């Protein structure tokens, strides 16, 4: 078991490193000569050279990469060119906001998703199941700006129950931020809900067909006991994996939602950085998001292995 975890950690490290190479390459090498872009094509060679030297761009690419990665790992994330402040504090502040949004959304969709998925599976092929299944299909892949804007138009503009924009002060407390979190959380939860419902439904349907459910029924156990002791234990396992991976997306992947609501989370920060071509900020933020994603995957893998006796006891 320990070996399993170590192996996974090793792969995770490898993945993050490879991802960092891609990020670095995409931001530093791909765009081409930064000096020409910032100083203009007609700047003198000398001006470009000194510019490059100042930024350390005259070193070989690999060295630049190594330096950057080394710094990042140690916590030195450089300075943001567009705001002229250190990168790290900004990122962490935004990260906190994203975590708050993630928490609210999580509470909304996980219990509901599992419940709906179970109901759909137990009532397979009835109108309830059809409604839930078609409904969940509809929401998967629905872009958040569509659902978000529609939600805003109904709840914020028409009914005026909730604020339409969530540009809270970056240092708000959770309580202060709560009313602004609701609509974005619902927007996010809609898509994630669909995934959880589908996964739960499909794995529960699979489990209900299994022989051991037949055995449990034929042992004369009560239906609730069959469901809770025998079915759920096995059918929720894949769902847990999906939820764990989803947490990664909840924290780092909400770029569009944050843009729709103007919410100061980490996704919006990345967008901001990209629009301003703030390299240090882009690199640090992107790598952090990837790290969060990868860790979420790792946790999902480990959870699955721990909860599944077939893997736990090889």
């Amino acid at each position, binding site marked *: 078991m320990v*070996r399993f975890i*170590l*192996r996974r950690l*090793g792969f995770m490290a490898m993945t993050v490193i490879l991802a960092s190479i891609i990020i670095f390459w995409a931001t530093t090498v791909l765009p081409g000569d930064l000096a020409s872009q910032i100083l203009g094509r007609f700047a003198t060679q000398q001006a470009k050279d000194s510019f490059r030297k100042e930024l350390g761009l005259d070193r070989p690419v690999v060295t630049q990469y190594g330096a950057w990665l080394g710094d990042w790992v140690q916590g030195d994330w450089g300075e943001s060119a567009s705001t002229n402040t250190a990168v790290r504090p900004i990122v962490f502040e935004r990260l906190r906001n994203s975590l708050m949004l993630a928490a609210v959304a999580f509470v909304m969709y996980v219990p509901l998703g599992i419940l709906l998925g179970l109901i759909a599976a137990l009532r397979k092929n009835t109108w309830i199941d059809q409604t839930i299944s078609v409904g969940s299909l509809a929401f998967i892949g629905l872009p958040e700006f569509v659902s978000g804007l529609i939600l805003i138009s109904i709840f914020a503009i028409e009914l005026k129950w909730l604020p339409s924009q969530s540009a809270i002060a970056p240092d708000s407390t959770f309580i202060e931020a709560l009313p602004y979190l609701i609509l974005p959380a619902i927007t996010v939860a809609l898509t994630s809900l669909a995934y959880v419902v589908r996964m739960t439904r499909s794995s529960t349907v699979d489990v209900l067909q*299994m*022989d*051991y459910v*037949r*055995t*449990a*029924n*034929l*042992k*004369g*156990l*009560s239906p609730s*006991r069959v469901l809770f*002791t*025998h079915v759920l*234990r*096995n059918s929720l396992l894949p769902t847990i994996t999906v939820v764990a991976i989803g947490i990664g997306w909840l924290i780092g992947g909400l770029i569009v939602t944050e843009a729709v609501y103007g919410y100061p989370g980490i996704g919006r920060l990345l967008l901001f950085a990209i629009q301003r071509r703030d390299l240090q900020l882009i690199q640090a933020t992107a790598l952090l998001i990837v790290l969060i994603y990868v860790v979420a995957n790792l946790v999902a893998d480990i959870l699955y292995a721990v909860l*599944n*006796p*077939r893997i736990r*006891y090889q």
Partner: protein
Amino acid sequence: MGAPDAATSPSPAATASRPTFEIEGLSIDYATELGVLHAVRGVSLSVREHESFGLVGESGSGKSTLAMGAIRYLAQNGRVTDGSVRLNGVELLGLSRKDLRALWGSSIGVVYQSPLSALNPSIVIGKQLAEVARQHLGMDKPAALARVVEMLTKVAMPDSEAVMKRYPHQLSGGMLQRCVIAMALMTDPSLLIMDEPTTALDVTTQALVLDLVADLKRDFDSAILYITHDLGVITKICDRVGVMYAGEFMEQAALHELFKRPLHPYTLDLLGCVPHFDPTPVKRSLVTIPGSIPRVDELPPGCIFAPRCTYMEAACAAARPPLSEVADAHLSACRRWQDVPTPVEHLRVATEAVRDAQTACARPEVLVDASGTQVHFKTAGGMLSGRKGRTIRAVDGVDLDVCVGQTLGVVGESGSGKTTVARAIIGLTPATGGAITLRGKPLPRSTGRRPRATLKEIQMVFQNPDASLNPTRSVGDAISRPLVLLGGLRRQAAAERAKELLTAVSLPVSYFERLPHELSGGEKQRVAIARAFAAEPGLILCDEPISSLDVSVQGSLMNLLMKLQVEKQTSYVFISHDLSAVQHLSDAIAVVYLGRVMEVGDATKVLTPPFHPYTEALLSAVPLADPDVKQKPIRLSGSVPSAMDVPPGCRFHPRCPRCLGDLCRQQEPPWREGEGDHRISCHIALDELARLQAETLVLEREETV
């Protein structure tokens, strides 16, 4: 006995003569895409306490549906439409689900086919079994666990305390089935339903489980309904037998009566489809039932078996004969029951001699010679996991000869390496050691390195008919391809020849255009055989080609294989765990265990004493479809060791009932030569073995003419 029923139980005096379990006129329908199927129609049977009723039938017979329907556990689209089912006098068909649940698990116990899937993989054994005790016997946790230990001991489970804490995937198939049986019997149920409980197990394990069931039958009062397709297994445990066909009973009788003097042509045919254990010098065909099992929505008017019946008359097709008592406790659904001959007569009429059994061939006649063949797999050690790689010694030094025009049967259980040997010969799994020659010339180890001419010589028929054919290619394409690729024919000529091959395997030429999903399992296997013969090979490897098919289909395929062998003088290597089938087809037999040959020689020699102790155990374990056969119960303990941990010395020694001690544990046994090319690998001398084993298998049978 057992938990109180939902309604009051009748008084003891009345139950004495009443059967425990009665089914009367039961009909079950299924609603499907294609309409309503009358899966079971007007079926009746009864089982008394201590009695075991064997329910025999092929696919589509409705036997499982009948049992499950009778206890009201049907699929969503299943419905009981008529009849009555009574357990201890209580009518089951009107009960509410709540009442049924009170009966399930307490008065009714069920054991079915695959023990690993029957148990919840996420809960330890002890807890799962204890659930029954807590639910129905009102015990609290400690008492329930104690009862579980008690039951596990009753089913001869070694180390019950440890087993309780294990998860299902950590136990072997045999042990799991014992657990399931223990669970079913925990409440001393009135009715025990067993649906193919040993089909997924090895022969030797099956024998142990059958012994167990026979013992439990004595110790518990339960009425047992035992469902199977295997006629041999029936003879071990059943008192009465009922034969079902396409949803109805054809015959019901006491065990001995049914086997010795059946009164229905279908039973007669079924008995004739099973190879008899009779190493005679002449190989006979098996009974073939023409046509195929009808779909339940396309039943003929009149007797449903009539279209396939040897003794059919015009009147048979007019009205459906009811199942009626025609002799003492003997029911038959045939109007001509009086004209039905004895099994021996029927065999004489319906089968014929095909060819002589051949003995070991002379050297120049050897087609394929494998010597010292080894197939070792290395498991990945993995730098990150820090484990060393282990070696799986799947085939560990095997010598085999296949002669021109002969059949070599290779028999063994799971883990024996028999399939791997075949794959090494054909090159799918390249050998890692030893040499294989084809007509004297060395054979490259993998298919990739073999020239066309060599590939043409060796072909294979695989185990799973559903996966043998590419689902997106038509039957004609599948057969034509080897003709084009290996036979060098052009498209047109190949298509013509393919049609000829279809006829040779008794399939209509119109099948040329069909896709595999439009064929039945037996038909697909015929196509696979035609495809194998298309290249005109000298050797065809048959890897369990019939194991997954119905009994009657198995018989007809074995006939086909024999017929084609005579016509084309092809050799076969026939691999199977089914000793009866191997014995029926083979001229020479090799018995394999854990990667080594234990015994090899002419079929007649191998199957008469002296045997290798493993062969002996196999022979005494194989259930023969003959209640008069006496098999001495030689049983093997434990299970097959992993090929990663081959025992030192004689690899069979940990399980050998005749182990001599240190000699067997430390030294590899020598080859002992018997008559002809018969060889046994054992420390015990041949005459000693012959003396000890004289009574292992005693066949008392009337002379076949």
